[in-house]
Structures are given as structure tokens and as C-alpha cells.
């Protein structure tokens, strides 16, 4: 009986985990589904997407980003203005109290610049994120296909 209960608890725990990547926690924040798209080897730029949930009563914001695969990592946003697509740096990204910051293709992303050798499918690398309140943590990023539209 006890072993059945244990097996049930393990199964439940497994179901609670997201299907992809690991969830990283820091204080009231949890970061899920950090992924990037593969590039050609000579690519200078890449994009990382992740979802940050804030279970706390205080907003937080990202003050620094760093990745060993790139010279710089900067918050970016793509906007469509009529028919014209524009991509530009944004100010510090904030995560509202009790809310979430969701990044996906065609919107907010973390732009990797001066890539050192591109990104290959299946590769993973740490993205170091520094929050104003929650401190610094390393988020594992998984690289999917070049045409991926979400974590794979």
C-alpha cells in the first residue's frame, strides 16, 4: 500500500513539472521554459525566450543579463507598426507582483549579440539573470530548431 502511495506521489510530482526544461526559482520568482533558436555558425545574433512568474507582493525587474555564448545579452522588443517590423532595445523588463513576464517570438525577447560560434539544436547554455530584488541566478537555456515557435 505504502509503495502504491509513494508511486502516486512521484507521478503527481512528475505531472506538476513543465514538459520542457527545468523551472528555476529565486525568492518569489520562478523561471520556466527558457529556450533559444538555432542559428547558422557565423550568426552574430540570437534570441532567447523565457517566462518569469512572480508569486510575491512586490514587483521585480531584470537589471543585468549575461550568457557565455554571446558578447552581450539585451532585452529587445519587436513591434509591428502598420506593415513595418521594428526591433529595438527596451528598458529594464519588469515582472509585476502576482503576474508574469512571458516572452515569445514576435514580441519581447532577450537578444544575444556578438554570438561566439552560433547556436546548435540540442545545445544548452546558462543565461545569468540579475533581478533587482531576487538577486542573480543562472537559467539553463535549451536550443531548439531555427524555426521553433516554442520550447521543444
Amino acid at each position, binding site marked *: 500500500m505504502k509503495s502504491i502511495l509513494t508511486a502516486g506521489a512521484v507521478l503527481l510530482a512528475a505531472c506538476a513539472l513543465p514538459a520542457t526544461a527545468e523551472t528555476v526559482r529565486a525568492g518569489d520568482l520562478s523561471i520556466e521554459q527558457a529556450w533559444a533558436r538555432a542559428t547558422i*555558425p557565423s550568426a552574430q545574433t540570437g534570441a532567447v525566450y523565457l517566462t518569469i512568474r512572480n508569486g510575491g507582493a512586490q514587483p521585480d525587474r531584470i537589471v543585468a543579463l549575461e550568457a557565455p555564448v554571446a558578447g552581450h545579452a539585451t532585452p529587445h522588443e519587436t513591434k509591428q507598426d502598420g*506593415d*513595418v517590423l521594428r526591433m529595438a532595445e527596451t528598458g529594464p523588463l519588469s515582472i509585476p507582483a502576482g503576474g508574469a513576464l512571458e516572452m515569445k517570438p514576435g514580441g519581447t525577447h532577450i537578444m544575444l549579440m556578438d554570438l561566439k560560434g552560433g547556436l546548435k539544436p540540442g545545445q544548452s547554455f546558462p543565461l545569468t539573470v540579475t533581478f533587482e530584488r531576487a538577486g542573480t541566478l543562472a537559467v539553463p537555456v535549451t536550443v531548439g530548431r*531555427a*524555426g*521553433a*515557435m516554442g520550447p521543444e
Partner: protein
Amino acid sequence: MTLRHLRLILWSAVGVALVAGSVLLWRASPGGPVPATRPDPGRPLAEGSRWQLLDERNQPFTPADLPGRPTVMVFGFTQCPDVCPTSLSYVANLLRSLGPRGEAIRPLFLTVDPERDTPAVMADYTDLFDPRIHGVTGAPDQMAAALKSLGIFSRKVPQDGGGYTMDHSATILLLDSSGRLRSTLDIHEEAEAAVRKVERLLAGPGAPG
């Protein structure tokens, strides 16, 4: 049919062409420089324009190469990691949905950043999405002339800390085998709607729609 009816029909056709032309022009240039050539939906696209580009195999690509096969044209650049992969992935999915019928289509990715996108870079980049998608680039002045004649807006935008990015039109152009602009696609359109538009291209230049 009386002469009056015929006149009415002809004038309506002129009206539709004018409206379609101005919509395309308006869509191609919000706040930006106005393309010098207005694509006329009744004429083969870029007809009378003179430019010479290079495809990803270093072969010349000119306005004379636009007719021949139904063509899907996507515009972007390889150092655009967010939205350009989405557009190319949309076209790759479209080709997959069409199955064997998709073989008649010529999917092209034209760069708005010819300074950095060499034919070799374009070849490697397009192959990440579907080997059938071919890259097209060229000398900067030739590329600018081509984009203008196709009604595509692009602008270089300097970035903090050096380097630059490109603003550009999001529209995907659908040309029939006579080189006429039949329709456009937006990556937010449902896959089934996109398949139907491409099927109309495959039906040939004489087919309605």
C-alpha cells in the same frame, strides 16, 4: 452586352486596380520613404525595372526571372533572430501542408540587408528552414532598386553600442506564374487560409481570385 455596360465594367476594373495599388503602397510605407514605383496589380511585378541580384548559388536574378513559376517572396535579413525565423518557419510549414503540390512553388527569401547577407550566408540560413527556400541578395544599390520596385520598405537603424538593425515590410508577396502580384500573406493568417491562397496561385494566372 451594351457599350454602356462594357464601359461600366472597364471603369470598375480601373477603380479596383487603383484602390488595390494605393492600399499596397500605403501598407508598404507607413511614415517611411515612399517607393518610387507603385506595384500595379494588373502588370507583372517590377515590369520595366532594371536591377540584377544574385541568388544563393551566385546566379543572376532579374525582373525577367519573376515569371515562370508561382512565387512566394519573404523579406527579411539573417541577423534578425526574432521575427524572420518566424516568417520562414511559416513558409516552411506552408510548403509542408501543400505536400507534393508545393513542389511547383518557388519560395524566395530576399534580404533587406545586402551588406551583411552574402549569397553563402543566405544559402546556409534558408536551409535551416527548408532546403526549397532560396535566398536572394545583391549589391546594395541593386537590392535597393529591387525592393523599391517590389513595393517593399526597408531602413537601416543604428543600435546602441555599434552595429545596426533593419526595419522592414512584413508582407509576404504571392506572385502567379505570369509574375503578377495575386495576393499577400501575413504570418498571423491561419495556415488553412494561406494554403487556399497558394492553391489559387497554383491554379494559374487565368484562374479567378
